[in-house]
């Protein structure tokens, strides 16, 4: 194993990030390594008397045409956009300050297509490891193995909210985001709704669910109905409490605001995808004095939720909460796979820092790879 990996690593390091290798020879041309055969890497190393240069490539008639004149004593140039499997000839002419004296070098290279992008080795290895872990856990979960997921603290509000609503005899409001059913955030929200509906059926608390899209509406009705059935209270299920407001973004917000002011719910849940309207909703909810719980994967909206709500599920916590409550093998398995990836991140970063401190730059370069 070591015998294979080491030369690979060395080869990789020699590629470098820009693909330019300083060389001892005055002028060299080499096929760019590990590519689709469309580039040649040129490098030169001139004596210190030189002050300007002209880099030239032979055209189809064999006449040299200038491709660059940017000066550096030790420099490089990557000539890209070439044909694969063809020979290219280059000439470097270097001048003195007064241009009275010049030297010229020629070099040639043949472009070759490779079968693997060696600079993407780290990408392939790590990607394979993480994909493997995700699949492993999904199949594990499907076979009914119990996978541990910690409880999400944002969910603690559920009990409190239902308790308070029951005590006051007021309803609970649940908004499953303003995205359509295609958004996984909406799906996650519906999974949480299922749990909340189960509890509200047990305690006999009224549950209001305004929806923005008809698809979400029918899914939400299905979810709540199922939960009531499961709780043994199908009689308490009222279809009209789960209703369509309007497709229009701000119209929807105005509608939900109206409901909050009229019904004065004791607890509000805003879970799912929210955009700019997040603020208007939670502001009104705060005004009515409800306990507010929010959660979204939209990073720009989280700050507003944190400052205006009592509990917030941050980003991935929303999906984790949904997996925790639904025990769906696909969600659970993926989540565990991602967790494996996170552990890997922590280990890799710590190793990398130690390596950097020890002056072993190759590790970082290997992980970063090249393009």
């Amino acid at each position, binding site marked *: 194993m070591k015998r294979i990996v080491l030369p690979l690593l060395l080869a990789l390091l020699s590629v470098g990030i820009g693909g330019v290798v300083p060389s001892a020879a005055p002028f060299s041309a080499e096929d760019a390594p590990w590519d689709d055969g469309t580039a040649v890497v040129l490098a030169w190393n001139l004596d210190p008397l030189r002050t300007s240069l002209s880099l030239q490539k032979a055209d189809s008639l064999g006449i040299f045409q200038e491709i660059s004149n940017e000066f550096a004593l030790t420099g490089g140039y990557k000539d890209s956009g070439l044909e694969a499997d063809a020979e290219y000839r280059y000439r470097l002419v270097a001048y003195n300050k007064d241009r009275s004296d010049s030297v010229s070098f020629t070099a040639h290279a043949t472009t070759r297509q490779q079968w693997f992008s060696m600079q993407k080795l*780290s*990408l392939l290895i*790590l*990607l394979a490891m993480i994909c493997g872990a995700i699949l492993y856990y999904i199949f594990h979960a499907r076979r009914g193995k119990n996978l*541990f*997921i*910690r409880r*999400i603290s944002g969910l603690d509000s559920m009990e409190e909210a239902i308790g308070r609503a029951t005590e006051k005899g007021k309803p609970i409001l649940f908004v499953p985001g303003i995205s359509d059913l295609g958004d996984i955030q909406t799906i996650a929200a519906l999974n949480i709704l299922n749990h909340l509906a189960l509890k509200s059926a047990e305690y006999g608390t009224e549950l209001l669910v305004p929806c923005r899209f008809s698809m979400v509406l029918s899914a939400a009705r299905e979810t709540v109905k199922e939960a009531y059935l499961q709780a043994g209270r199908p009689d308490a299920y009222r279809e009209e409490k789960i209703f369509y407001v309007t497709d*229009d973004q*701000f*119209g929807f917000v*105005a509608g939900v605001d109206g409901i909050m002011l009229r019904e004065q719910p004791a607890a509000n849940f805003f879970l799912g995808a929210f955009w700019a309207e997040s603020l208007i909703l939670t502001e009104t909810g705060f005004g009515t004095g409800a306990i507010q719980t929010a959660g979204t994967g939209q*990073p*720009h909206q*989280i*700050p*507003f939720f*944190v*400052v205006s709500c009592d509990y917030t599920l*941050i*980003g*991935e*916590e929303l999906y*984790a909460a949904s997996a*925790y409550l639904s025990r769906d093998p696909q969600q659970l398995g993926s*989540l*565990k796979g991602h*967790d494996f*990836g*996170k*552990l890997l*991140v*922590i280990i*890799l*970063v*710590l190793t*990398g*820092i130690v*390596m*950097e*401190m020890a002056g072993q730059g190759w*590790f*970082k*370069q290997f*992980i*970063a*790879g090249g393009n």
Partner: protein
Amino acid sequence: MAELMKVLGIWLGAYFTLSIFSFLYKDNPFYKLAEQIFVGLSAGYWLIYTIYNILVPNLFNLLFTDFAHNWLLLIPMLLGIMMLLRIIPSAQWLSRYPIALMVGTTAAIYMLLSFKSDFLAQIAATMVNPFKFSSPVDVVGTILLIVGVLCGVYFFYFSKKQEGVFAIPSKIGIWFLMVSFGASFGYTVMARISLLIGRLDFLLRDWLHIIK
């Protein structure tokens, strides 16, 4: 004539701007009308633009002028038409093929690119020796950066009960998240105000000529 139409245009712009602003007082017919006109114009714009700038140059033109070289484009055209059949309920299943092709392609491209840029490159960028900097501010900052990334990632780790010692990094992680949300908050406020400035500038300058 053109001058007059320009003035009319600015008055139109002012009318629609004020119609939208009227929503701040309450929902009303002016707002509703302006909103639906916006939706209609927007749909019209997308439709015309897509036809003129993509379908004509990238598809129809190539097929009509040089069919021999471009006949393969008949396949995406066919798939595109299958996509349009979604509006006919009985033919809806045909749209699954183009959707599958698009979803499969996007999934793979996103997987490779975000794994490289948002995973590998970010990990590599965190592998920094904090003591290589000369300024103490940078040293402290880099240590904060490393601690923040590790604890932040740990906060989203769900496979372990976060109790006792295991709760500490998670707690630190949330602090970093909160600082970053605070920054986001500040920047969002900034952005929203900027948009308002633009509109008031239009009303005061172009319409009312109060600002010269």
